[in-house]
């Protein structure tokens, strides 16, 4: 029997994977993928909890999250393209412009 707990544990594992990926990866594409992983881990827990409580809100929020994530990805990818045009690289360690 697959209980709500299983979904939540899976969600936590996926989220942690995403976090670690964001922290250790240098390629922004991969970092993006990890961010998506984190988002979807959250989505999973939303749906699981929505089913657990028999409410529709959980699924509704996921639809919102997907729409926002799509918009965010398009902006993010645009930024990456712009950075590449300017600096000929997308390695995040070389794009440390916040440090003077």
């Amino acid at each position, binding site marked *: 029997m697959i209980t709500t707990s299983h979904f939540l544990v899976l969600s936590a594992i996926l989220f942690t994977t995403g*976090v670690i990926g*964001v*922290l*250790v990866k240098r390629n922004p594409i991969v970092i993006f993928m990890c961010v998506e992983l984190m988002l979807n881990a959250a989505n999973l827990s939303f749906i699981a909890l929505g089913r657990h409580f028999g409410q529709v809100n959980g699924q509704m929020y996921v639809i919102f999250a997907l729409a926002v994530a799509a918009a965010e990805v398009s902006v993010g990818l645009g930024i990456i393209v712009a950075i590449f045009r300017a600096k000929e690289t997308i390695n*995040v*360690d070389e*794009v*440390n*412009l*916040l*440090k003077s």
Partner: protein
Amino acid sequence: MSTSNLAMWIILLPFLGFLHNAFAGIIWKKNAKKMVSYVAPGVVLLAFGVAVAVLMTELPNAHDHHLIGALIPGTSASTPWIKLGGMTVNFELLVDPLSLLMAMIVTGVGGLIHVYATGYMAEDPEQPRFFTYFNLFITMMLILVLGGNFLLMFVGWEGVGTCSYLLISFWYKQVENAKAGNKAFIVNRVGDLGFALGMMLIWSVFGTLSYFQADGKGVLQLAGAGHAEGAHAALQAFSVMGTPVSTAVLTTICICLFIGAMGKSAQIPLWVWLPDAMAGPTPVSALIHAATMVTSGIVMLTRCSWLFQQAPQAMQLVGYIGLATAFVGATIGLVQNDIKRVLAFSTVSQLGYMFLACGVGNYIGGMFHVTTHAFFKALLFLGSGAVIHSMLGEQDMRKMGGLKKYIKNTWLVMFLGTYAIAGFPLLSGFFSKDEILHSALSSPGNGMFLYVVGLMTAAMTAFYMNRLMHKTFYVKQQFVDGELPHQHHSNFDDHDAHGHDAHGDHHAEASHEEDAHGEEEHEAHGHAHSQVHESPASMMVPLYILAILSVGFGGLMKMTGAFEKFLEPVVPAMVHAEAPISEMAGYIISSLVAIFGIGVAYLVYRKPAVAETGQFIPAETKTQWEKNPLNPYTFLLNKWWWDAIYNGIFLRLGGIFAMLLWKVVDAGIVNGTIEGLGWIVGGISKLSRKLQTGYVRNYALAMLLGVIVLMLGVLGSWSIAAK
């Protein structure tokens, strides 16, 4: 209370003149100089007319011998000027015999000097600026004497100081003139501090600054009331607003005010600025540094005489300081070579006499000497100005001599002025000086000492003034006519004017031999085209008027007693002790002393050897003496080393102290603290800057850690709440 409607115009007329002169260039374009030379003397003489009108029409109707007037047309005398908490100061004028007398001296003598200055300054391209300051000075001086409270007097006091500064350094392109102006201004600040402190004390003791008030609680009314209870009882019973005022407080007030007077009237120890003030144009010396401004200390003391009468120790201080100044000034005057400097030290000395008179309680005598001194000292200064003018700017008496045959009229007026100040019998100075000496003799205490030193000073005065006359007019001519260098002082002049003060000694010695050669040549040519010329009528007419006053005023007033009767109501009567000699004996002794001084000068400078060179002590001996700083001649020539001592104390030691404050306190402590704080903050930032790596993942990690901490916090609080 009686009021005056006219008095304000005495002040407003010169003020309008000041405005006119300041903007004359804009109003009249090219005619500015001409218009200024009409308007500037015009307004002052008009103000004199108004003062006379007030004297004739309003003062006789005054109740209690004083009138209160407004300063601005259309306002009333009690229009508040400053209202601060419980303090109200009115914009009021006080017209009484004392202020009116001073107003007439200031506008009368001042008007004559204005007329003279139109001639003297005619060639100066900055003449409108000169008369702007001159009229402003008259305005301020009138506010000083006519102001109805101490604060207005202070306004005038500072105003005349400013004008004095502006006029001393009028030819500011020569740096010594600018320095002399600074010196006068700075030394006066010391005195002004005393005045300000005295004023604050008066405010805290009397609760007002007005001399007279409608409710009878003016400063002078209260002080006068204390006086009326009898000299000794007054000291005990003198009370203001219910609380007895101790003599110590009154003495402090009086000494503070006297310090102010010391600065303005050039008394020891604040006298050093006056000789240097001669750097200004000669009319300035005559008007400000002889006839009017420098006497404002005596006017102030006389105005506060009711207060001083309650503080015998302060009076004694005034008397002794005055005597010391009179003596020291006269000794220095004996050896000066600059014609204006002799007169400057003579002024210092005569001001000392006036303070002596105030110190022994003879305020009327002091004011009498103020008046006669205004006449003859203005005359002498203007006469010396005419001499300088005719000598094309030369001020060193060693380069004059024999001028009598060139400028006979100037000689005549100078002669009369000299005899007047020397105290020759029956001239003005004789009566006023004798009045002071006699009252000093009959004052309780050390009357004899005051008298004898006063007589010695009188003898020296007679000597040095006649020395001036001999050196300038009688001894053999010391210059070559036709070869006089042009030294007209002005801002637009290429000639340096080094020869004109005592520092130019070597210069003078060097040119001396040249003179000897040129002498025969000069005799051959005759003086058909003499360079030395009599001054224009605009300069001579004021001199004649002043000469008449110098000769006749004193005797007239003494005979009719008008002066005493006029001032009697406003000052306390002198406390007389029995004079050891009669008034007639005093006259005879004074006459003998004056004639002795004149005679000594005559004997010394008529000796053929002296008359030849014009120098009693040969120049070589003087040069020898000057090398020894302890030689009496050098001692006097350098003003008792007074300037040197002040330089040592205030400039050197003060400089070291300032250096200490700068290097240690300011640069070390203050700056150190501020910079130390900055250094610490900088260090901390340097460390914390390392946290900012610029790597996105480090920031992300920080965010994550933050989230974890928050979550733990929330979970922890839940678990606590659950328990």
